[in-house]
């Protein structure tokens, strides 16, 4: 019997879950035999058992919603500001030539280090967290939007011109759909950078959602609960990725 008749190997989701289970089992064994220090890395089984406890005692679902809300605000700001900024730079070639390398440098800058400045400007609240998340995600979205628009095949633009498309029609009917895959890559990168910074700043300023809880649990040295909370951070990321993927498929069914 070949692979064709085996549904397990034909389902990427099942293969993914099985890989995760194997990795957890391997860590469990390595901790049991003493190859990994159990005071630094808790047993995966303890982490799983800690999940109901943090739901009941630590309001992890409320904190999950706080962090997810902040990440959603970052995503909306990136879509509303960073994508148009990329379009503006595509149109304004002189300004683009002047600032593109700066935007590239911004992508590599550890913006989280200037969180005190944001604290002074916005105060110790969710606004600071969202602002830092947005600043961290800005550069990849701008750069990938620019890249996608530039990569539009000239023949498509000429085809549009031959049908006498207006400038606005050229943008909405050709440039934007053509650049969508690259823009979505930028949004994914922007959300990764944004979420890392959201959770990082929650941790640093001890305010808000999952980052603050991770800070609390780390200080209490409740490692199983801390790792279980990190699992919820990953869940936020997974949900945003899945949502973006659905949105992209709806906007452009075929790549």
């Amino acid at each position: 019997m070949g692979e064709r008749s085996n549904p397990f190997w034909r389902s990427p989701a099942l293969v993914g879950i099985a890989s995760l289970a194997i990795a957890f089992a391997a860590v469990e064994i390595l901790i049991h035999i003493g190859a990994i220090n159990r005071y630094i890395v808790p047993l995966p089984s303890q982490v799983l058992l800690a999940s109901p406890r943090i739901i009941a005692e630590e309001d992890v679902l409320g904190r999950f919603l706080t962090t997810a809300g902040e990440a959603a605000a970052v995503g909306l700001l990136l879509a509303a500001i960073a994508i148009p900024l990329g379009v503006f730079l595509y149109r304004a070639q002189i300004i683009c030539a002047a600032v593109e390398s700066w935007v590239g440098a911004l992508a590599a800058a550890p913006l989280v280090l200037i969180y005190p400045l944001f604290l002074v400007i916005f105060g110790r609240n969710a606004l600071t967290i969202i602002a830092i998340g947005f600043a961290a995600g800005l550069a990849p979205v701008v750069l990938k939007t620019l890249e996608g628009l530039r990569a539009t095949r000239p023949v498509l633009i000429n085809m549009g011109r031959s049908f006498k498309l207006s400038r606005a029609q050229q943008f909405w009917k050709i440039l934007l759909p053509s650049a969508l895959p690259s823009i979505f890559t930028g949004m994914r990168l922007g959300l990764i950078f944004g979420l890392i910074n959201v959770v990082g700043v929650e941790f640093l300023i001890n305010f808000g959602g999952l980052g603050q809880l991770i800070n609390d649990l780390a200080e209490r040295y409740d490692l199983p609960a801390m790792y279980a909370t990190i699992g919820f951070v990953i869940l936020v990321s997974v949900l945003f990725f899945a949502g973006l993927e659905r949105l992209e498929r709806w906007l452009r069914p075929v790549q």
Partner: protein
Amino acid sequence: MSVPAIAGKETQAPLPAGTRPLLLVEGLGKSFETPEGVVIAVDGVSFAVAKGELVSLIGPSGCGKSTVFNIIGGLTPASQGRVMVDGEAVSGPHAAIGMVFQEESTLPWRTVLDNVAFPLEIQGMRRSERLEIAMHFVKLVGLDGFERRYPSELSGGMRQRVSIARALGFRPKMLLMDEPFASLDEQTRLLLGDKVLQIQQELGQTILLITHNITEAVQLSDRILVMSYRPGRIMRVVEIALPRPRTSEIVSSDAFGRYVAEIWGDLREEASRGMRHDEIHALRDARA
């Protein structure tokens, strides 16, 4: 089949007396500024195309065929001369001209039907009406059954047929095609040639075909304008007196072979000149 006489060496393309040209090109010239100085790509190109005619412009690579295509289509301004379509001067893209490009130009995120309906959507036509018209042209190019497919699900030849249907859906008075089958294999090219002949016959469509393929030009054309290598000039006009309606079976006739040989006789020296020019440039670039 009798072998018809081949036209003489006139460099203009006169239309029969009293025929009003649909396309009139007069003294067309185009020069480009390059680091090595001014390059004259096209010089003094004049010709006319009558309604319902299929005329090919043939020449070696680098002779300025695509430049002429872009100028007639209104995508590039001419340095000298003028282009008139249906009595109107062309100063930009014109509703009377439907363009089919050498490169694949379907929109990958739209289905075949939505691609063909694209220019009608731009004109603001109602969805039901534009889809009905688009479907008519999808059928005309033989793609019915594929209307809900995306371009990535089609072969190169099918995608070019989508481009032709889209240009026809725009209801142009003249179809301007730039080497539309250049990337296809010979057999597909011959069969698509049949499709172009069938469409031309059914619609009485005026077509100006830009090509470097002698076989394709003879198979399809009423007249062939032979261009020289840079600067591109029309050095000869060949009337193709092969019978119509025509199919690709014509390629096995003696008359077809004579036309191909005659045109190649004219083009050989020009193509060699182009090749030598490219070799000199490649050597110079390698030394630099």
